[in-house]
C-alpha cells in the first residue's frame, strides 16, 4: 500500500522492520523521493484498536480504525484519515472539474445553464441535506459543460452534479 494524508496529494510509501515485539520505521519515501526516516517504533496493545507509538523516545497511544482502504487515526487528540492507494495506482484521481454532492440529498435549485460562463465562488446549485441548505459553488471560473441533475431529483453522496470546463 501507498499512503496519503487527508486531502494532501503527496504519496508516501513506508518500509517497517520487525524489531521483536515492535516494528521500527526503516525507510520512507514521499512522491518517490527518499526522506530521512524519523526514529519511530510501533507496537501492539491489549486494548482493541489501539497501538503504542514511540516517537523520539516518547510513547503515545494511537487509536486506529479501518474504513475501506482508509485508516482513521486518533493521535495526540486529533483525528486524521490516512488514505490507502494500491501500489502503482493512478495518482491524484481528482474528479477533474466535476462538482460532487457532499451529502445525499435533494436538488432544490439549479441556478445555471449548460454553456453559461461562471466565476469563482458563484452558486451553481442549491441542495438540501439533513434539513439544511447547501450551496454548490464554482471552485474556479469556467464554462458549465454538463448538468447532471434537475430540481427535485435525489442525489447520492459523491454523485457528480455539474461539470465545468475551462
Amino acid at each position, binding site marked *: *500500500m501507498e499512503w496519503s494524508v487527508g486531502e494532501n496529494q503527496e504519496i508516501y510509501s513506508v518500509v517497517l522492520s520487525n524489531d521483536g515485539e515492535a516494528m521500527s520505521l526503516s525507510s520512507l519515501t514521499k512522491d518517490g523521493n527518499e526522506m530521512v526516516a524519523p526514529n519511530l517504533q510501533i507496537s501492539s496493545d491489549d486494548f*482493541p484498536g489501539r497501538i503504542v507509538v514511540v516517537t523520539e523516545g516518547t510513547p503515545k497511544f494511537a487509536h486506529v480504525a479501518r474504513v475501506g482502504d482508509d485508516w482513521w487515526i486518533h493521535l495526540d487528540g486529533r483525528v*486524521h484519515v*490516512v488514505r490507502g492507494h494500491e501500489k502503482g495506482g493512478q495518482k491524484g484521481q481528482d474528479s477533474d472539474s466535476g462538482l460532487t454532492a457532499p451529502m445525499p440529498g435533494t436538488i432544490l435549485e439549479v441556478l445555471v445553464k449548460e454553456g453559461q460562463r461562471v466565476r469563482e465562488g458563484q452558486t451553481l446549485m442549491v441542495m438540501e441535506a439533513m*434539513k439544511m441548505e447547501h450551496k454548490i459553488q464554482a471552485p474556479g471560473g469556467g464554462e458549465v459543460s454538463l448538468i447532471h441533475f434537475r430540481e427535485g431529483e435525489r442525489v447520492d453522496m459523491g454523485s457528480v452534479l455539474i461539470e465545468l470546463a475551462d
Partner: protein
Amino acid sequence: MFPDWMQGAPNQFDTVLVANRGEIAVRVLRAVKEAGLRAVAVYSEPDSESLHVEIADEAILLPEGPLSENYLNQEAIIEAAKSSGSGAIHPGYGFLSERADFARAVSSNDIVWIGPGAESIEVMGDKISARSRMISSGVPVIPGDEVSIPEDGGHLGPLAVAAAKVGYPLLLKASAGGGGKGMRVVREPKMLRTEYEAAAREAAAAFGDGTVYVERLLTGARHVEIQVLSDSRGNCIHLNERDCSLQRRHQKVIEEAPSPAVSGLVRESMGKAAVMAAKAVNYVGAGTVEFLLSSKGEFYFLEMNTRLQVEHPVTEMITGVDLVQKQLEIAAGLEMGISQEEVTISGHAIEARIYAEDATRGFLPAIGRLSTWIAPSGPGIRVDSGVRQGDEVTVNFDPMLAKLVVHAPTRKAAIRRLDSALSNFVALGVVTNIGFLRNAASHPAFLSGDITTDLLDSSDISEFSDPDPPAQTLVSIAEAALRMGLDKANHGVPGNPVDEHTGHSGDPFRTLSRSYP
C-alpha cells in the same frame, strides 16, 4: 407502585413515556429510572437498535415512514402511552415538545404532561403574541415585526415594508422556526427575496409553516439565557444564566455557566425579568428565557423555550439541581422544594456539542459508521450521548451525537478540562467537529470570555484550522496497523462481544451484557 418521593402527590404516575430519540431520550429515560419509575421509549424502525431503545424498560415501535408518521405522530404516541400503562409523557426537546395541541391531547387522555400548560406553549410559541405579552408585562424586547406571506410567496410587499421599518441588517426568521433552521441574515434590501425564499423553504421542510418574522440584527451581542423553574403552587425561581454566545449560523456550539459577561447586578435583573416572563404566561415546569445582552449591559427578550434545553446540563452542574427530576416532581403536582435563596453557583461548567459534521467543508453533516467511539471520563466530566460504538450515523436525523460537559472550580480550569476531555474523545469512522471544538475553545476570544454570537461567522475560518498533521508518523501507523491486522480485531471494545457471523458489535441479543461509557 409509586416511589417514596411521589407519596401524597396530586397527580401520581408510576410509568413515564419519553417521546423522543437520541441523547435527550437517553438522558430523560435514565432520570425516570433513577426516580424509581418505569421508563418507556418509542422509536421508529431505523432506530430499533439505538441506545435509547436499549436502556428503556419497554420500547414501542412507531409506524414506518417520515417523522410525521412516528416521532411527530401524536395519536400513535398517545396510543403507545396507553398500551404501556404510562401515566405521564415527557417530550424532551424538539419534536412535539412545543406543540400546544399535543400537550392538550395528552391531558385530555388523562395522561400527565411533563411540561407547561398548552396556553403557555401557545403564547410563547408564537413570536408575535410572546412579544406583546412581554411588552405588557414590562420585559424589554428587540425592535421587530411579523409578516404573513401568501402561500405562493410571489408578493413580498408587506415584508419589504416591515423590513424597512425594522432596519438593515436584519434577521429573517420563520415564525415557527428554531435551532437555526429557517433563519437568515439579510444585510441589504436587494437580498431580501433570495433569503426569504431560502428561509421559507427550510422552515416548510422542517416545521410545515411559512410565516416569517423580521427583527433588527444586533451585532456584537451575546446570547444569554435564564433557566426558570415554576411549580403549580405558584412558586417560580430562576437558576442563573447560561451563555450560549459561541454559535455558528445561529446554532449553539459551546455553552457555559455562569456567563463571563454577566455581573451579579445584571444576573439579578435578568433573573427577575425571566421570572416575570414565566409568571406572565402562568408557566409550570422547567423553561428557558433567552435574552440578547448588548455590550453596554442592556438585555432584550428573544424568546422563551417552553421545554428542557439541549444545554440544561451546565445549569445542573453549577447549581446541583437535577432539572429532569424537578420536572417529574412538578408534573406530579408537588412543590418544587427549593427557594431562590437556596440557588447558588458552584464553579464553572462548559458544554461542547459533538456534531457529525465536517468543519473543513463548510460544516457539512457527515455520515458513516462509528467504528470507534470512546467517550472521555473522569472527575468533572459528563457525557450525554445518544450513540455508541458501532452505531450508524445517517441523514435521517439531527447530526448532534453527544454533549460533553465539564465542571471545574474556575472558568480557566474548566477550559483546560474541556480541551483535555475533547483530546481524549475518540470518534473514528465518522467526521466530527471535535477538532474544531478544540480550536474554538483555544481561540483568544473564547479564552478571554469576549465572545459574541457572530464570532464564528465573522472570523476567518483559518483561525480555527487544525495544526499540520504529522504525516510521517501517520503513514507509518497506517502501514503498521495494516500489518498487525487491526482491521479484523477492531469491531468492539473489551467486554463488548462481537457477533461471530456478522462481525458487528450491535447484535441485538447480546446488548444486555454491554457496558457504555
